[in-house]
């Protein structure tokens, strides 16, 4: 059930899937959809993620059947087959994923049998039924991983006790996904682990195929990936832990590290030495600019993972005053909401901020306008209007980000917290 929304953040289920596929090296989606879905899905996610998009294929370079009236009336399977054949012939991809838009979904084209012809010939082509009306891009993230679990990931891959999989950071839907995954990898490698991020360092379909050999799945998100994690454990026997947010700064990243260390029973000395070194690194910088940032009463508007991470860092580590946190993505399930709320309100010293769940821009603006005391809004590009009207500082640091260029910038971990703090400097 999808709610009516003003200025929704991100696209449909198809958009979420396209974001994931776009972030995997040398993987090519094939859209069996109306003529605009390639552009729409990419503009919804990649297009609002700090102005970078998948370099392999994205938007109008994605193969598409561009279904018109003729296909709507007579079915589009013939067109789909010639499109798959063309893609196989000319695209230099390691795997193809056939995705359906609303049009194919409503008329009920049987893509599974169409694709099986090419699978029988030995091509890596996978069908995923993904009509846009099924839900939003968060759902897309789970749907694509379920599809990987069902169709792509191999069974009986030898266990590597040092290998971990990172889930929960949704490419492009987190504008800092690249940098955040790089920083989290750096941290985990510092603990002697090998890391599948799936989306950085040109990790490709082979990484996905063999990720069942990991010792642990680490979900870095307060609520996404519950379903796939369960399925992953049932099918491949890999357990999961959930870090309920994005770890930002020394305190939360330390908590993240200890949680991983405990799950994998890592050597205590190794972990402590690592933490000490990293914390020293962060504080040696923070010590150089004490008082450079004026004290702020702040509001955060963002997806739950970013909102949790940013709020906890600014409140616990930077001693800013949290007043209001708006979770700007539809979150389903009461226990999920409670987990998010707990993370935001269970702070070390600060008085807990108000937590509001709404993905609707009108409600977000109204809630911000009613909050009298704030002097800083950390939100998306959409919050610039509310900040301008209130005359307060605005840092665009959550999705959607349309007015910044983001490559490998991180806000997660130790180093990311320093970058985020740099961004907060306003000199006003």
């Amino acid at each position, binding site marked *: *059930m*999808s709610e*009516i*929304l*003003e*200025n*929704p953040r991100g*696209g*449909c*289920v198809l*958009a979420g899937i396209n974001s994931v596929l776009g972030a995997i090296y040398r993987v*090519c989606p094939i*859209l069996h959809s109306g*003529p*605009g*879905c*390639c*552009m*729409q899905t*990419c*503009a*919804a*996610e990649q*297009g*609002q993620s700090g102005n970078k998009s998948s370099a*392999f*294929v994205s*938007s*109008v*370079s994605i*193969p*598409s*059947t*561009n279904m*018109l009236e003729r296909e*709507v009336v007579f079915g589009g399977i013939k*067109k789909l087959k*010639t*499109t798959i054949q*063309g893609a196989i*012939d*000319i*695209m*230099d991809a390691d795997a193809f994923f056939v995705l359906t838009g*609303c*049009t194919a979904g*409503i*008329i009920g084209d049987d893509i599974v049998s169409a694709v099986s012809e090419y699978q029988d010939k030995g091509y890596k082509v996978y069908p995923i039924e993904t009509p*846009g*009306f099924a839900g*939003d891009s968060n759902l897309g993230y789970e749907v694509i991983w379920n599809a990987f679990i069902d169709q792509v990931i191999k069974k009986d891959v030898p266990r590597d006790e040092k290998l971990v999989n990172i889930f929960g950071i949704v490419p492009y839907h987190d504008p800092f996904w690249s940098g955040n995954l790089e920083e989290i990898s750096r941290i985990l490698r510092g603990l002697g682990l090998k890391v599948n991020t799936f989306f950085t360092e040109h990790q490709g379909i082979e990484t996905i195929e063999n990720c069942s050999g990991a010792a642990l799945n680490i979900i870095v998100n307060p609520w996404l990936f519950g379903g796939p994690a369960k399925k992953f454990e049932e099918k491949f026997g890999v357990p999961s832990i959930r870090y309920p947010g994005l770890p930002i700064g020394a305190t939360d990243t330390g908590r993240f590290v200890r949680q991983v260390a405990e799950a994998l029973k890592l050597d205590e000395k190794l972990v402590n030495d690592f933490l000490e070194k990293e914390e020293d690194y962060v504080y040696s910088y923070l010590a150089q600019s004490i008082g450079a940032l004026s004290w702020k009463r702040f509001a955060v508007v963002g997806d739950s993972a970013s909102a949790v991470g940013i709020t906890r860092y600014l409140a616990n580590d930077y001693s800013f005053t949290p007043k209001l946190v708006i979770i700007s993505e539809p979150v389903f399930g009461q226990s999920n909401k409670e987990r998010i709320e707990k993370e935001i309100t269970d702070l070390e010293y600060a008085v807990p901020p108000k937590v509001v769940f709404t993905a609707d821009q*009108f409600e977000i603006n109204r809630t911000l306008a009613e909050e009298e005391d704030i002097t800083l809004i950390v939100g998306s*590009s*959409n919050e*610039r*209007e509310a900040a*301008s009207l209130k005359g307060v500082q605005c840092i665009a640091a959550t999705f*959607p980000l*349309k*007015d910044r260029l983001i490559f490998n910038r991180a806000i997660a971990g130790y180093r990311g917290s320093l970058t985020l703090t740099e961004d907060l400097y306003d000199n006003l």
Partner: protein
Amino acid sequence: MAQTYSGVRESKPGRVNDYGGESIKTAEAFKKGCLKRADRSFAQGLQCQQINSMSALMSLEDAVFIAHSPQGCVGCTSLAVDMYRVGQAHRGVKHIKNPHIIVTNLDQKSVIFGGENKLRDSVNLAIERYNPKLIFVFASCASGIIGDDIDAICSDIQKEVEALIIPIHCEGFKSKICASGFDAAFISIQKYILKDTKLPKDENLVNLFAPVSISYADQVEMERMLGLLGIKTNYIPFYSNLEKIKQIPAAAASTSICKVFADEFMKTLEEKYDIPYSHTVMPIGIRNTDKWFRGIAKVMGKEKEAEEIIAREHERVQPLVDKIKARLQGKRVFICGGTGRSFAAAALIDDFGMKLVGLETPTYDDDAQVDIEYLNGIHGDYVVDIANMQPFEQVNLVKKLKPDVFIGVPEWAAKLGIPTTHVLDMKRPTMGYDGLIFLGNKIADQLSNPGFNVKLSKHVRLPYKDSWYDEDAFKYIVGGEENV
């Protein structure tokens, strides 16, 4: 009156969207009526018409935009939203606003039971929140296929409310030509706002139709040029409002900045409100700017004044153009763009003495024929690819033709190491005599300092197999067998 135009551009006879060949043969074939409609058995994504309908109107004041669709169909509004915000910054607006876009968020349930209630609730929400003057309701593939009758629903709601409720039929699957979405928007403006109401004429007023892709600098330049003729400009619908739209019938004449924007609508305005119009070219480059300016001057009976102004402007910019020409003379160019921009860019390069080797444009029709014949006269034979982007064809051609410079969306040619530049800069000057100099310097500078693309191409590969570059670029264009 002729049969009512449906807004679907394919409905016009002779229009072709899938074709590739040599330009001289192409023009001959079209003349003989031998250029047949075809298709691509393999293609990459297109821009749907809903994207154009929404972007055309997104900057209107006092409006709410309702997409009767799943959430994904407002994806491309991110581009229009960005243009709206940047446009406000350029216009000196202090508190930069977001446009109000509401998505009805059609879901599994709506697909089965219909989305009428969601649409009604969305309209009510729009009124409750903003009490707007205008509420646009955009159809989608999903709403079209499940058969929601948005006209009936909107007309029923209209009985109760003051805001104008305007349904727009821009279902993506109805057209391969995204410019159809512009037509769909204008058809609804006529039907629901203007409604054949005639106004007393303002003899100096000209409707200047501008899409989202026109920078503020370009607006200022167009208004400056028309101002030289003593013309008042009603700049619509970009950055305008209901009052300005209602003023449309009062104008003495109409013209457009883009070839495929309001061209059909201007015909309607002539039929229904006796407003003559000038439909020429996009004013990019000296030849096109002259042509565009003469066009509207003629309709306004100001040809003599226009010639004087053109002479003066030439005198002013020609020395600057000559300087740029000295840097660009003889360079070989491949151009890819939308209908307006591609032909405008092709005319522009003649100002600088450059040679056209390849032209990619979305549609071939009577209008295109005029331009192609003109370009054939200057450049002789070059390759014509009738395609809406289709980067796989583009890179195949670019790699074979090895142009000195590529003008258009830079993403793919850049990875081949070719200097790239763009004439679709929605935030900076492009048009008129002043825009020409900015554009010329941009091309010349990028051509003389190509390091970024050269180095990029050594590290980044396009997603195609090497074997593709040896194949016929038009291999996947099927049907239309009579085509040469």
